């Protein structure tokens, strides 16, 4: 099944990403061993020049991976009619055992890539490249993830057979099954909404505090991550119901379909971007103390927190809008 243009594009991205990740990993080992900014040796000069290439390449590949995540989901949704029993991306992804792992790995790469991109930007702000070692240490951690994601994705597409009968989302997302999907489905709608509101409040509070006092970004990052998880649960448990105007259809993928005005993208994109920004802000905060970043990093963090808050707010507005415009009455 790999002779489909979107699949070829995805494979191309992941092949390039793996090649760059492996090469950057090898280079990262050299940096970790020999990096010494005080030295004027030939090797250090070469390393300094090559870091520019590696970060440009890695940045470019990570951006491509971010685009690939959206394309992967979009394509899975579009391929659903090819599978017997599939109605949305869930059917395509569960057509064999590798679909959902491929998606989860892609999401993990997305978050790792975005945090790395922020780290890279912060590093460039300081005149003495204060975070270089850390940045390349992070590459060593990300490279295996990128390669694993490429391998799982390739396995998934190679084993994709259209004549197997797969599961429809209405079978996967029911409270009757075992597993995490049904746990999420089974949560009481009222409780899910209260949790979401609480998490939203926590994010807003933590964000305001960190904007005001210039501290507490770690708490903000934690709150953001928690909000992300609660939001996913809430989408499955209650928000999807409002979008479908249906008390029993819980699928978190059907909302991406044109039938519902692509409202899923309006929910997921701000949520993912805001979470990445929040987590990034939390991981950058410790370096605001570094001598060469003292002057610039706090302003960057401030902007980043603000952008994250805007993203979460957009998510909130879309949620409220889809509840308000729905004809479904769940309470009262």
């Amino acid at each position, binding site marked *: 099944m790999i002779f489909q*243009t979107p699949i070829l*594009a995805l494979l191309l991205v992941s092949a390039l990403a793996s090649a760059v990740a492996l090469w950057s990993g090898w280079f990262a080992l050299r940096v970790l061993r020999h990096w010494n900014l005080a030295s004027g040796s030939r090797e250090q000069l070469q390393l300094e020049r090559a870091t*520019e290439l590696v970060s440009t390449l890695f940045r470019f590949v990570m951006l491509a991976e971010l685009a690939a995540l959206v394309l992967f989901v979009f394509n899975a949704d579009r391929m659903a009619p090819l599978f017997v029993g599939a109605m949305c991306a869930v059917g395509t992804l569960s057509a064999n055992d590798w679909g959902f792992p491929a998606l989860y790995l892609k999401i993990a790469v997305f978050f790792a890539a975005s945090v790395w991109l922020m780290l890279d930007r912060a590093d460039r702000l300081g005149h003495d490249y204060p975070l270089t070692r850390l940045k390349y240490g992070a590459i060593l951690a990300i490279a295996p993830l990128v390669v694993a994601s490429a391998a799982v994705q390739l396995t998934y597409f190679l084993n994709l057979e259209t004549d197997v009968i797969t599961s429809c989302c209405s079978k996967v997302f029911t409270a009757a099954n075992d597993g995490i999907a049904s746990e999420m489905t089974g949560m009481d709608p009222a409780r899910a909404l209260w949790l979401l509101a609480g998490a939203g409040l926590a994010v807003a509070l933590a964000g305001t505090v960190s904007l005001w006092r210039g501290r507490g970004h770690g708490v903000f990052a934690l709150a953001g991550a928690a909000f992300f998880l609660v939001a996913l649960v809430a989408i499955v448990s209650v928000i999807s119901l409002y979008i479908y105007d249906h008390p029993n259809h819980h699928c978190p993928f059907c909302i991406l379909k044109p039938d519902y005005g692509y409202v899923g993208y309006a929910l997921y994109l701000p949520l993912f971007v805001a979470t990445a920004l929040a987590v990034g802000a939390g991981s950058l905060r410790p370096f605001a103390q570094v001598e060469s970043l003292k002057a610039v990093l706090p302003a960057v963090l401030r902007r980043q927190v603000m952008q994250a808050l805007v993203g979460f707010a957009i998510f909130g507005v879309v949620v409220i809008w889809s509840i308000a415009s729905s004809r479904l009455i769940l309470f009262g």
Partner: protein
Amino acid sequence: MTPAFRRQRALADYTLAALARRRGKNIGLVVIYALVVFVVASALLFSSALRHEADTVLAEAPELIVQNLAMGRHDMIKGDVIDDLAAIRGVTRVEGRLWGYFYDSVNGANYTLMVPLDPDRVLAPGEAMIGEGVPRVRGMFWETAPLFLSRYSGDLVRFDVVERISSESALVSTDLILLNEADFRDFFGLPGGVYTDIAVTVRNSREIETIMSKASALLPEARFITRDDISRTYQKLFSWREGIMVALAAAALLAFAIFAAEKASGLSAEEAREIGILKAVGWNMTDVIAMKLWEGALISAGAFLIGTLAGYLHVFTFQAGLFAPILKGWSVIYPDFALTPRFDGVQIAALFLITVLPYTAATLVPVWRVAAADPDQVMR
């Protein structure tokens, strides 16, 4: 305006001016790049339009078709099963269909002969309706010319053409000849009470699976084909052809990537001097890389737009004259049909990744090599 934004704007401004200074060389690059995009874009747009067309046509098809099998081959089905099928709950209509193929030895074309089920198209004996392709291959220029069909030498059957079916539905009707039921049976020597297959209309499409399992208990030997099966086959077929085209174009893409890498690493004396001067006046490696990335982005954007637009025009205005034989399939009597223009977000995203990514990847390393060189070394 933030300083970062101002910096990027200045870089873009400078890059555009620099590109304009080497107009000939850059136009050549954009043309070749656009050509590669054009090939892939045409394949994508054309097959996506064909898939759409197939879906539109199939929307009118019955939900379920029942065929009789004998020795694993399609055989005529007896009319008495119609009542059994109609008794299944959820089935709204069951009709026996009569259709067959006729090889015209005059011109080597195959016609589809059929008895219309549509009550508006009931035909009297001796009458026929024909699709737009039949008069075309038969040279029947005279509007009311009768149709003569010859089954073997010395045989001639005459039908009066009462209507030529409009070309709006050409995709399905181009080779069609509609006949009266008695004429049809007579023409093919078919006994009464048998049909080619049986069309079952189902009210709720979600019940098809259940209805199929009930029907297969009634008719264990029969073959059941759902509309979704047919649609799926078309989708797969066209996607696969498109994928093969794109995979073939990969060779061109690779050649182009090598060309671009070569071009980016082999600097002209003038360009080298320019970078040397830039570095001498204080640009650092990051600035030069950013400038070169802007150059790549502008060239990519230009080539992508031109190539996609040209592909769009090629497919929807010129009926994909260059690739149609590969993607459409072929036949003596091929329908003339206009494709409905449509853009598909996934396709465009895939097209962008497939064409722009190799170019960028191929030029990044040479760009860095140029930017990292010492000013005196580049200028020398």
